[in-house]
């Protein structure tokens, strides 16, 4: 067993903090690639059906509230900013700021989910949830969408899976919050903040794709 300087923050399998940090980062990136493939399956389905049922998709998309979506996009972008500032604070070893930014990130994340829940509830009321009660009325000038149910199936699948990722992200933030309150992180050890940040940004970026795909098609 090498007698290298194994401080308590370097796990036994690593030689040094640098190796540990590199491994964690490569690991997170690899994981994010699997996530891309995961969402890729949904986006593939979306592309095929949108191509096939262009008119239905255009009409169905108009039912979604662009401004609510826009608000949510802004909320998420701001949460990404606070996350990035949090990582910066961790790198500087500024515990107070770190805690503050993590809390801010969590608030914005929760706000996003709240708005999402409101949107879902609205869909329920308007019979836009696929199933036996589904009934599409459309908006004036765009009532006609024979395949709207497919669009809304994809809408719920895509935003639902995304929301699930947000919830996981909030879980990670809670864990980070606990650790940073305890003072685990320092200038020399902030890697968990960094890789949780990577995850958070990734979930944001997914939304950056979902928003135009679902809300912004054929808006003129």
């Amino acid at each position, binding site marked *: *067993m*090498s007698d290298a300087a194994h401080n308590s923050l370097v796990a036994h*399998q690593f030689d040094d903090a640098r190796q540990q940090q*590199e*491994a964690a980062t490569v690991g997170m990136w690899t994981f994010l*690639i699997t996530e891309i493939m995961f969402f*890729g399956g949904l986006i593939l389905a979306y592309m*095929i059906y949108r191509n096939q049922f262009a008119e239905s998709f255009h009409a169905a998309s108009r039912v979604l509230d662009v401004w609510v979506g826009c608000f949510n996009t802004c909320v998420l972008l701001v949460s990404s900013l606070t996350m990035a500032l949090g990582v910066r604070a961790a790198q500087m070893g500024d515990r107070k700021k770190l805690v503050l930014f993590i809390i801010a990130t969590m608030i914005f994340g929760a706000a996003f989910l709240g708005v999402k829940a409101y949107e879902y509830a609205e869909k329920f009321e308007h019979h836009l949830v696929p199933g036996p009660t589904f009934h599409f009325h459309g908006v004036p000038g765009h009532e006609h969408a024979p395949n709207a149910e497919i669009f809304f199936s994809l809408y719920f*699948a895509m935003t639902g899976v995304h929301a699930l990722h947000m919830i996981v992200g909030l879980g990670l933030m809670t864990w980070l919050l606990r650790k940073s309150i305890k003072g685990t992180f320092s200038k020399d050890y902030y890697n968990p903040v960094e890789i949780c940040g990577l995850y958070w940004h990734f979930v944001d970026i997914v939304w950056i794709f979902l928003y135009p795909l679902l809300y912004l098609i054929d808006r003129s």
Partner: protein
Amino acid sequence: MDTTSTVERVSATGIISDTIRTNFLNADYGIKSWLLTKDHKRIAILYLISITVFFMIGGAFAAMIRMELITPEADVFTSEAYNKVFTTHGIMMVFFFLIPSIPATLGNFLVPVMVGARDLAFPRINLLSWYIYVIGGLFTLTALVLGGVDTGWTFYTPYSSTYSNGYVMLTGIGIFITGFSSILTGLNFIVTVHKMRAPGLGWFRLPLFVWANYAASLIMVLGTPVVAIGIVMIALERGLGLGIFDPRLGGDPVLFQHIFWFYSHPAVYIMILPGMGVVSEIMACFSRRHIFGYKFIAFSSLGIAIIGFLVWGHHMFVSGQSSYAGIVFSLFTFIVAVPSAIKVFNWTATMHKGRIVYSTPMMYALGFIGLFLVGGLTGLFCASLGVDIHIHDTYFIVAHFHYVMVGGSVMAYLGGIHFWWPKMTGRMYPEGWGRFSALLVFVGFNLTFFPQFIAGYLGMPRRYHVYPPEFQIYNVLSSGGALVLGIGFMIPLIYLFWSLKYGEKAGPNPWRAAGLEWETTSPPPTFNFDYQPVVDHEPYNYSEIDARSSATVSTHSVQEEQHV
């Protein structure tokens, strides 16, 4: 460097040390020390036990299939029960045995040792992957106990999403969960190979087993999430009434097949690539030669992994996909045959002017080459558009993929288990029984599956509970073979278990094999090495090893000292 390890490394040259040392097995005791372990070797043993359980379940269902098919009529099961039986066989074998088989057991045990690391990069994630696997397995077993599922392991929509009244959701959730264990294992391997290699261990000094597992990991990481989302979509459709594949809403059920095979064809390479890695190790060791064409074998693994992602549509030649898509997929499928051919030729060339030792692992490896040849070459039938239209979804396909998955992966898996058994347990298995069982498996396997090629070309569709009487003779032969094959699988199970207590003690390197894993003790200590291994030579340096073993032990230890 302390003295005990010096003694050990002297013994690495051939003297078996009698002193009982601390190793990963006796480092700690009690069920908790196993269930909470972060040691990759213990996790490998946990995996070994659990996949053996699933293998036996899957095997029992295979036996039921063969029993039912002895006669053309329905005599053991109702159609409904039979459909559940073959579905369970497929699900258990594919998702719970073949995919984790070599990576999660041998790979988990050996990859860190082979790269000279103390553990995988993320030991806790590794343990988590085992728990995920077990939880997924429990979900699927629960579905089985409640009444089973009858969609076939392929879950084709709209049967799975709308019409089947089996426990599709529960099974699907089980497979979805298990998928994550595969992703986490792959992720761990990729990071470990990239970041944890010992000093001096460049990419082209890695054992081919590591290359093969690395290639398989790429597939696990890139492919598994896609089938996962496919299963999610089925679950949403079945459980919540969304309709992504529902033809009544204009959805396309064939889209599911694309998503499914995008993973499930490369998944075949998750099964076979690590097997090829095992065979490369065994062929070199028991030919006592440097492996022929190291770089070609290494790159052919990557080639298979990459081109393997472009061939999924060959499962869908008659599904109604565009004929031009069919042609492109056919072409890529033919091209992916070439890297497999490269490997076979290189293994054969490795034997040239070698010193062939007929050990059990070698017999499994030679059996692998023969069966994989047939499995691979019959793959050309399936890749060829004109012929595949006839043989698609017949027993020809069943025979073909069993030649690759059982004749290939399982033979390699058993060969690997025998090869590294002394390393994992510190005990030797009985060689005579080993050779006998290898022979029995080989004969039983061919008897089981060769007749299915003929039945398939005659037109017997797969998943048929009752069948026209002209196919009977081939089914009788197949069922007879299955009995032999079953016995062939039971024997190792018994004697390997027996050897844990009564087997001869193995030294660190009973095969005089090359590779870092043979430089440490058997079984290895918790952190694999008592020193920091440094690699200063090419892999598979068997000529040096053999030259050395004719010299005296003392010169050895001096040479070994250079490692320090």
